[in-house]
């Protein structure tokens, strides 16, 4: 075995290994590298002591700082609630009507409501409540279930036609109140509804008689609808579904039913109040 010796050219020691006359230089690591290495090692040991680190048979070492990511989240949330409390406690205590009367609260609710609406509601009702086929436009003054802020709050809280015990439930029956209608009668009825939507109901037409018999219970004689039953107005051009003769025929023979989740199952009461105020102020609150 060769011995460690000083290499004449580089001035470094050799490792003492020699293979077929070739000797290996033992160039040390740069000093800065070694210092960083040891600093990291010391840091790691300190970290094990201070922070949660090692698994144990029934848990893990908690560390001297007793840090917990979930605990620190709880604290963050508490601090956030604190910083918002000036507003939130007012909103908690006030009714939706009172919020609307207080200018500052209203503004706060509008800003908050907008964000929450974007996250939870716009997938169906469209950005800014612009609506889509089957999802009513909320930015107009046409309401299925009532457009007062309290009625809107109720609709959001419990939703429409879902499993929640308090949800709004009534729905349209095929062919209205009664048995199946013949195709010809359905056609006459659809023609009448089209004329009604055009603000010129065809007086004395066969469709009018069928409408009076089968549909007025929910949609009212003049087709203005019924907010207690969620029956849309038929005497205008705003359609929840397709509208037109085809759409109306389809709704009479095989009614579609809109459904919305009960948001009190996901969102807290203050959040729903802000949403109700936001929706009410989108354009067409009553």
């Amino acid at each position, binding site marked *: 075995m060769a011995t460690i010796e000083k290499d004449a050219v580089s001035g470094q020691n050799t490792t003492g290994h020699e293979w077929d006359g070739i000797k290996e230089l033992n160039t040390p690591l740069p000093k800065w590298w070694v210092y960083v290495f040891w600093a990291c090692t010391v840091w790691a040991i300190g970290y094990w002591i201070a922070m949660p680190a090692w698994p144990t048979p029934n848990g893990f070492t908690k560390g001297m700082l007793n840090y917990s990511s*979930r605990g620190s989240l709880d604290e963050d949330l508490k601090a956030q609630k604190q910083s918002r409390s000036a507003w939130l406690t007012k909103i908690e205590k006030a009714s939706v009507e009172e919020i609307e009367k207080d200018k500052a609260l209203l503004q706060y609710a509008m800003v908050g409501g907008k964000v929450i609406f974007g996250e939870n509601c716009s997938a169906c009702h469209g950005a800014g409540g612009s609506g889509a086929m089957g999802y009513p436009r909320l930015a107009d003054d046409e309401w299925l279930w009532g457009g007062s802020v309290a009625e809107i709050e109720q609709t959001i809280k419990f939703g429409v036609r879902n499993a929640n015990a308090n949800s709004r439930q009534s729905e349209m029956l095929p062919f209205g109140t009664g048995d199946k209608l013949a195709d010809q009668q359905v056609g006459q009825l659809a023609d009448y509804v089209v004329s009604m939507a055009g603000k010129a109901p065809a007086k004395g037409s066969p469709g009018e008689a069928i409408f009076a018999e089968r549909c007025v219970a929910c949609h009212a004689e003049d087709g203005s609808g019924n907010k207690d039953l969620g029956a849309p107005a038929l005497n205008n051009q705003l359609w929840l579904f397709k509208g037109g003769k085809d759409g109306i025929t389809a709704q009479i023979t095989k009614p579609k039913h809109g459904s919305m989740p009960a948001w009190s199952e996901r969102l807290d009461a203050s959040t729903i109040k802000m949403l109700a105020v936001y929706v009410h102020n989108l354009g067409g609150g009553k």
Partner: protein
Amino acid sequence: MSIFKQHKVFETNVFFLAVGILLCIIVGGLVEVVPLFSIESTIEKVQGVRPYSPLELAGRNIYIREGCYNCHSQMIRPFKDEVERYGHYSLAAESMYDHPFQWGSKRTGPDLARVGGKFTNEWQVRHLINPRDVVPGSIMPGYPHLKRSLDYGDIEAHLKALSVVGVPYTAEQITNAKKDMAEQVLSEAPDAAIAKRYPKARMGSAMGTDKVTEMDALVAYLQILGTMVDFTKVNPEAIRR
């Protein structure tokens, strides 16, 4: 001379070299494996988490097959903004019956860990067939092919395989798998047997047909996500880590 200078012994003797390598791997392996023996304690003890119903499980398989995880995570991290947006942070317990879990790390679309109940079945179906139909600016691809019927002849085997890796499916659940699968789609009314075996399972056809389709399975899976644990009954101290 210290023993650290003796590496020539290892470098010139194949037997010692092999033994040395083996020892290194054993130590490294143990350091990685031993902590897993205490994994039980990392799973929070909360009420409500149950194995997926056969329909939900089939939906989960479709979720994986279609690569939804490439764009969607299922992991709400314990950060303020995430909790505000998506709801309560995810617990390890909530994915303890997932093999493999779908936590993911890519969020081209929103996190789906608590999407259950957020939308109606009707919305989910329309959105999956063509996302632009309901969300005009969406970049998510459409999945209209999921309207085809679901091939679930082998569902019992799926349940059995999962029970081998520790998902507590009972013999009753396994023998009834096919029946429960059809039942969950085809019966609108709450079914007592299914409600007992799989509490909170959503009944009824998402497609509104009398066939069991892939869409029904995927939507049933999406609708159960994040809804099993009732967080109003969970003590925050007990799940703190």
